[in-house]
């Protein structure tokens, strides 16, 4: 647990920042041409960007964008994905066959390219970015949920519930969802890390947040032009991105191990 403390702190700080950043006395958009490209050593803080805006303030406000996009995309892809996947798996038949076909079609596209195409079609902006990434992202959850349901529905307590006359929604909610939550939660934590990077990528291409609003991805894109004269423009948001993704991944790993312990314990017991 102590090993995870830094990761927990990073994620908690990220969330807190996203909630409170509106109330902090930050000036991410204040242009001051006298401070253009000043380095942290010369000007303090994290230095200033090509329009003289304070990089520290922009990194902090960028946290909110990343956070909103990450959780928005994960929620928008996990909920419909799990719903579609578990229904297809439980009901089977034509619905299942059709759903599998749809999922295969989505998977046939390279995910990020599809998101780029969609974001281009819908036009730039955070809401469209979230939509585009969720359109690509739900398939993973749907496949996972379907596979879980297919194996769990054979279990005898599910058969017993059917024999007692329980209706399908009740069986899904009480017997299937609680048991498949473990892998889904783990998938979601890894999803968060993936989405933060995807947002940075799309913003880097100019399809994400629009200027003057800050996101870590757009900051890196803008900073690249000055990489040789003012590397702090790229390093500061890059480090933030790196820390958050690493922390979320570490937590995801830990969560997976924690949830797996139970199955290990069960095997030991039956072997004895």
């Amino acid at each position, binding site marked *: 647990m102590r090993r995870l403390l830094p990761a927990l702190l990073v994620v908690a700080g990220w969330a807190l920042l996203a909630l409170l950043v509106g109330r902090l006395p930050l000036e991410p958009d204040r242009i001051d041409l006298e401070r253009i490209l000043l380095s942290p050593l010369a000007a303090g803080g994290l230095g200033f960007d090509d329009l003289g805006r304070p990089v520290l303030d922009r990194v902090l406000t960028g946290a909110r964008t990343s956070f909103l996009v990450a959780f928005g995309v994960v929620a928008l892809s996990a909920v419909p994905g799990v719903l579609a996947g578990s229904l297809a798996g439980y009901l089977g038949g034509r619905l299942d066959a059709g759903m599998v076909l749809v999922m295969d079609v989505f998977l046939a596209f390279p995910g990020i390219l599809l998101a780029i195409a969609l974001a281009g079609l819908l036009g730039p902006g955070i809401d469209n970015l979230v939509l585009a990434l969720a359109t690509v992202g739900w398939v993973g959850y749907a496949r996972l949920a379907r596979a879980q349901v297919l194996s769990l529905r054979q*279990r*005898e*307590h599910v*058969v*017993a*519930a*059917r*024999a*007692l*006359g*329980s*209706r399908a929604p*009740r069986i899904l909610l*009480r*017997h299937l969802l*609680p*048991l498949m939550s473990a892998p889904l939660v783990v998938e979601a934590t890894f999803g968060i890390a993936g989405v933060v990077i995807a947002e940075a990528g799309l913003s880097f291409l100019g399809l994400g947040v629009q200027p003057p609003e800050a996101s870590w991805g757009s900051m890196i894109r803008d900073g690249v032009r000055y990489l040789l004269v003012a590397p702090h423009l790229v390093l500061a948001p890059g480090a933030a991105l790196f820390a958050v993704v690493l922390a979320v991944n570490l937590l995801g790993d830990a969560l997976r191990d924690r949830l797996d312990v139970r199955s290990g314990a*069960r095997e*030991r017991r*039956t*072997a*004895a």
Partner: protein
Amino acid sequence: MGEKLLEVFDLRTRIGRGPRAVRPVDGVSFHIRRGETFALLGESGCGKSMTALSLLRLLPPAGRIAGGRVELDGENLLALTERGMRSVRGNRIAMIFQEPMTSLNPVMTIGSQIGEVLELHKGLRGDALREKTVELLDAVGIPDAARRHGEYPHQLSGGMKQRVMIAIALAGEPDLLIADEPTTALDVTIQAQVLDLLRDLQKRYGMAVLLITHDLGVVAQMADRVAVMYAGQIVEQAPARRFFDTPQHPYSRRLFQALPDSSKRDRPLTVIPGSVPPLDRDFTGCRFAERCDRAWLHCRTQAPGWFDTGADAGVLCHLFDPGLVPETAPEATQEAGAASPEAPAESGSQPLLVVDGLQVHFPIQRGLFKRTVGHVKAVDGVSLDIPTRRTVALVGESGCGKTTVGKGILQLIRPTGGSVRFDGDELTRLRGERLRKRRADFQIIFQDPFSSMNPRMQVGDIIEEGMVAQRIGGDRAQRRARVEALLQQVGLRPEHAGRYPHEFSGGQRQRICIARTLAVNPKLIVCDEPTSALDVSVQAQILNLLKDLQASLGLAYLFITHDISVVAYLADRVAVMYLGRIVEEGSVDEVLEDARHPYTQALLSAVPDIEPDSGRAIIRLQGDMPSPANPPAGCHFHPRCPKARDECRRAYPPETALSPTHKARCFLLP
């Protein structure tokens, strides 16, 4: 008697560290002579497998041997280096495990898996290696060994895999073969083949065998000497004859009394109350005292010593201490329980369930477009009546379709043909809401009490589930009251409602499952091997409970099982299934005492009897059950039938009525 091959002195094994370490083996001493079979008998969790693993020093990672000596031909195995130990394993001591399905490597041919041992311990290479491998496969009775040599484990049946495991064990020509429940995962007819083979090989190679089992019947057939383990200790040791004639330790006696059979039909089985104590603490008195009917104060305060009762025999029990005069408790008061009140005669009453020509065929689909290329005829024309308040047993080996019959009747799998009439309603035509409502009348209890409950739900919610689904039992408070009443009815306490399934033992979980079905007031319960995952003493508790409930609630049971002794104890009628069809049906006495179909006869004779050398002719069936996707033409049983005639290959035999209640399908019958 031969010289001593293996001697074990005061062996102690710990799993885990600190004061909560589990002690599955706690001071075990025994010896095995050359060429003899020594059986270690005990219920699950008593430490018998851990004893075997300790001998080979193959303990799980957290385990360690805390003391004692293991001497093989005078050499202390516990003092050997790991390298020295490797040359013992597979070479001088070999082991076969319970589960042949997972003991073989699925991506290696069976020939190369046997060859591995020969290469390692005998240094064979090339043609000599291949020759020896084929010879071994031949020795364990695998037909066409030269061709089978190159096959993979999935191409073999369970019995064949266990033969391959035995061949691997034999490859090192061991002095001692440890067989850990070698036949528990196999069907009785296959079990009989494998036990024959083991006995035969033992004679031929002069091996000693350490047989680990929970099955008294297997012990009676195989063992020269027996040791009974309980809670990490050997509590009784004796030559097999003597043990089966006069078991000494109260635990051993109880084990015999808890075995169901036909002679105990009209009274409840003797049960051993409670369950095996956890092994993670110090014991002050006798470990069995809590469950013993003959325990007195002394037993709880002072651990008993070992008392010799004859040559090679001894008991760990205060009752045999000549220095103590036991205030003998009256023996076996529980046995004198009154016979359960008989249900009124069934004559004239309509059968509760009438199954007629039930078919469950599963399509086999191949290729891109899922074309149907054939059918697995899991159930192919089964007809069966179940009267109210009666128990009909459906008997057969695994894969014969008996579970599918149960699920087909309950409409959990939709039958593809035939009719199922329950109380006048045709269930196969009921759909949707009407079927859902009707489901309260017929319920199911499963074999595995671990997977049949949702691990994330509390016991109270599990039992309440049926009432919620059927909208019966009034408001929440009334339902909770009923849950508590049900818990008491199945022998648990009301406060158990707030706990989770993993806090209960196997027998208790099965009680919870029974309470769950009772909650919706069913008329028929399909019991799908409800006791085969349980130990003998716990099985007796569950069988008694089922019998009591039948008497008090008027339930009908369809009892699906492979265990003939349970059938003899519980059933009123018996139907024997082979490959999707019923081959013989009749009252329990007719079928068990006067079986007419050759398959029934073979099945009954293959059940190991606890009377050693009872002189019964045992009919050995050749081969395995064919696949239901491609059943043999004519009578399905003819390829294995010792009495098959020409006409058996051509047509499926018609039904022959042997008495008003007894019928069978065989050409040999008049």
